[in-house]
């Protein structure tokens, strides 16, 4: 049976588990882009982003991650996995730094020096300013803002991915956007 863009994720998963390499390749190519972009904006490090995407798919491949189609879509499940992997990666740093306040929008920017491929790719200076401002947001605001603004997910989907309720998604998104707007305004004033 051939694989088309309309072949469902469930069908690809079933064929992947039956040992069809093209099904796994199709599944990876279908979802790697959004997952990588989310990871990259979330953690700021292309290497960490690539590692987390790879680890998420490895979990799917080995069966270590038990995806249940009845509990949600595969992309959202993978977003959740990538987010948890990034949190796990950030855990040592979080232990050493104080907890962010609810309206804390002054988190130090994630490391992404001039050699960072993301910086090189984002030749558009305006886009790079937004990325830097986003990187300064507290992680819990960053999750909501990236998933909503960059990936167009609904409040419900974000709530599932971040394991929080919809009201919390709404407030985090509102505060995250406000903090982002403020950071961009400040940056514009400084530049002027």
């Amino acid at each position, binding site marked *: 049976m051939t694989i088309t863009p309309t072949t469902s994720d469930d069908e690809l998963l079933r064929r992947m588990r039956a040992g069809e390499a093209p099904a*796994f390749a199709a599944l990876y190519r279908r979802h790697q882009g959004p997952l990588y972009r989310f990871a990259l904006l979330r953690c700021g490090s292309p290497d960490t982003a690539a590692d987390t995407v790879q680890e998420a798919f490895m979990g799917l*491949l080995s069966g270590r991650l038990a995806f249940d189609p009845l509990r949600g879509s595969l992309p959202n499940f993978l977003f959740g996995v990538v987010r948890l992997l990034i949190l796990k990666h950030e855990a040592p740093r979080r232990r050493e730094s104080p907890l962010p306040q609810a309206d804390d929008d002054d988190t130090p920017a994630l490391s992404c020096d001039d050699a960072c491929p993301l910086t090189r790719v984002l030749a558009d200076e305006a886009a790079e300013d*937004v990325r830097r401002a986003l990187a300064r947001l507290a992680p819990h605001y960053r999750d909501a803002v990236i998933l909503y603004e960059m990936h167009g997910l609904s409040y419900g989907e974000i709530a599932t991915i971040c394991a929080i309720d919809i009201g919390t998604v709404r407030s985090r998104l509102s505060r995250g*956007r406000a903090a982002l707007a403020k950071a961009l305004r400040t940056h514009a004033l400084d530049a002027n």
Partner: protein
Amino acid sequence: MHDDLPELPHLDQRLAQLRMATTQLDAPRCVEKELMQAFTHQFARRRPSHQPWHRRLGLLEWSAAGVCAALTAGVLGLLLVPPHLVDGLPETGALVRIDNGAAFIALDSFERIAAEPAPRLVEAAVPRTMLAAFGLPLTPENAGDDVRAEMLVGAGGEPLALRLSSID
């Protein structure tokens, strides 16, 4: 898009710029390559090898197969052996008892014979060839003979049993 979010037109425009700038970003090619290698490695272990099937079976599998085959043969043997070979009686439905040259052949069940209210005894001559079916001795010399018999019949004339005074 932001029904319940504060309007921040400038922010939306800036976010759209970032969205446009990152839309083509993909994971490095090496990630896919490593994943496909892992996939091949994982399923190579599950895939059957090119050895003949009998060489892929280990001692445990062969032992289990042997035990299964022996059990199957035993069960089939018991099922396929004719019942008359098991209990030593001819397959006639009659009960035969031979004692000191005399034979008693029950043509019906003992319960039916015992329950018969008015049995009668009738003298008869029975061809020896017919009695061979009940397991009585038959030789080429006596094959054409008749045997004197007493037949027990029921009130309705149905035969219940035969008694052969001398079968030799």
